[in-house]
């Protein structure tokens, strides 16, 4: 078995863990490694500017909400009721949007689900569990350029 296949197989044995799940584990004990497929590299949210044509080379960049959840030190609240207590739940609930200066519709979901993961190098398959925090915001926002834009922002 070559090193690459061994590494792939090892990864295949690991579970898909969401950003939130692993963050919480890491806050307590040293978490086992997981396998994550998601846009978890910090990047600016950019939109499609629904009212301004889809061919724009430079998409509008919205502003993040002011709140910072630590860890991981990023601008969002974990999913929870909007009327959560600030005293007992400072980082969960409240504003479900990750962008500010926004008006529109929003949906978020904290879900646990299973599926089949397949190593495309070996063909080996196994059951994987996934814990995900998925969201979208669709509407109008004021971007970093101080202009008003419309679009859909996804949070994966």
């Amino acid at each position, binding site marked *: 078995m070559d090193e690459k296949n061994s590494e792939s197989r090892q990864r295949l044995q690991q579970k898909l863990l969401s950003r939130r799940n692993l963050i919480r584990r*890491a806050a307590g004990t040293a978490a086992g490694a997981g396998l994550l497929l998601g*846009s978890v590299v910090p990047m600016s949210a*950019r939109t499609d500017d629904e009212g301004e044509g889809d061919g724009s080379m430079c998409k509008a960049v919205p502003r993040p909400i002011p709140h910072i959840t630590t860890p991981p030190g990023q601008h969002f609240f974990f999913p929870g009721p909007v009327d959560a207590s600030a005293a007992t739940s400072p980082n969960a609930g409240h504003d479900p949007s990750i962008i500010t200066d926004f008006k529109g*519709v929003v949906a978020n979901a904290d879900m646990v689900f299973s599926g089949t993961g397949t190593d495309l190098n070996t063909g080996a398959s196994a059951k994987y569990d*996934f814990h995900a925090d998925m969201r979208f915001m669709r509407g109008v926002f004021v971007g970093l350029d101080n202009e008003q834009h419309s679009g859909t922002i996804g949070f994966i």
Partner: protein
Amino acid sequence: MWGSSFPTGSGRVDIGGGSAELLVQNICLFDVFIVPNSFDPNHALGIFGAVINSMKIEWSGVTRSVVGFSDATNKFRGDFFECSATIAVSATTPKDTGHGFHFESDPATTHTNFAQFGSEHNGVFF
């Protein structure tokens, strides 16, 4: 902040109908394997291009309504509806990255820890 542009019309919320839906296809993103690797500025485990082949999330079955809510501290207000959600997702990290992997979810296994949809105004629109 983590976010990405979704195509026009990919997300829909039907307040009156008590449901919402997100449907996207061929969304490019990164496979960073584990969360700590995403926070590591050096990304010691690497970063590999991946794609969500398709993903459909459905919100329905309202269990609690929070209408006319306003939070002056966090500067947001709106109508929010807690509910359940299901997800069907297919994602691939191509073989040519050296980490070929494909995941196909089973929507029937979805367990909702928390889900909601609604309409809101925040920031300067608060």
